[in-house]
């Protein structure tokens, strides 16, 4: 008598793979590698201090985050919600005002002659500042720069800065509006 070999019961297979699936879901994390990218300046050489570059007072926006997480811009307390507008106004200087940074005409490939701000945002924080506040401030400043870039890009090329595909175009925009954020050498302002 020919025996018909019984079929394998695959009904439980789905359960097993479900188990594996849930295991992987629990042990893994969807990648959250994102954040604000910054470049650190090279270290100072103690034997060879940098030349004292005379930066005019009007070209610097002093942003200080205190120990108690308060925000001071040019010595005045301001709300973090106003920081972006302040930074934009500072970097753009639309009215050519005397106390906002100088604008320098530069020739940039792809854009032609354009006014580039000489302004630098100087960011200083205390050792006691919370990291969250610091990131919020960095974020607002980054937002200010990216909005300015978007505006310029839309005006010149008709698309947002992040949507520019042409390398020369995006390079031109980033030259016209550089990330002018400088972090001061740390010092202990308000103790630990």
């Amino acid at each position, binding site marked *: 008598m020919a025996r018909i070999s019984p079929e394998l019961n695959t009904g439980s297979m789905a359960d097993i793979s479900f188990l594996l*699936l849930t295991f992987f879901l629990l042990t893994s994390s969807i990648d959250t590698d994102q*954040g604000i990218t*910054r*470049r650190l300046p090279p270290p100072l050489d103690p034997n060879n201090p940098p030349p004292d570059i005379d930066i005019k007072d009007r070209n610097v926006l002093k942003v200080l985050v205190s120990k108690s997480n308060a925000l001071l811009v040019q010595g005045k307390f301001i709300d973090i919600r106003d920081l972006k507008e302040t930074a934009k106004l500072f970097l753009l200087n639309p009215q050519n005002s005397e106390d906002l940074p100088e604008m320098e005409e530069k020739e940039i490939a792809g854009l032609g002659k354009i006014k580039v701000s000489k302004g630098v945002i100087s960011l200083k924080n205390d050792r006691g500042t919370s990291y969250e506040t610091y990131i919020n401030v*960095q*974020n607002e400043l*980054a937002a200010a720069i990216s909005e300015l870039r978007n505006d310029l890009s839309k005006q010149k090329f008709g698309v947002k800065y992040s949507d520019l595909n042409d390398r020369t175009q995006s390079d031109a925009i980033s030259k016209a509006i550089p990330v002018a954020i400088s972090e001061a050498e740390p010092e202990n302002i308000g103790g630990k």
Partner: protein
Amino acid sequence: MARFKKAGGRKIPGINTGSMSDIIFMFLFFFMVITTIREVTLLVKLRPPQASEIQKLEKKALVSFIYIGQPVQSKYGNESRIQLNNSFSSVSDIQAFVAAERQSRNEADRKMLTTSLKVDGETKMGVVTDVKQELRKASAFKINYSTRKKGKVTE
């Protein structure tokens, strides 16, 4: 004469579940591909702050991580600590860590190495500043403040 015999009454055939496992396996592979298993066990509490102006870290192989936060286990105190690889470290270990990370990449990639700072939101900037100073000394200039995504702050 041929006789047609019906075995029993009319039965609704059962649904074939054979392909079910294939579908689930497909799910499984999908999740395996898009996720990463944590390589290090976190010894510090980590709740990075939120930001809207974020960039994605592109080449994951070229990223080294520094974790800073309060220890998970309270026996290590509640002062913010630095975690490198799988152990608590001090600020002075960072240069060696960066050198080791460089050593493990091939020559061409070394310049592109990014250091991702995964820092808890409640950490004081003092520690972070110290770490940044050490990174400058180790000439690891490209850094990334790891943040969670949030919508536009003010629109």
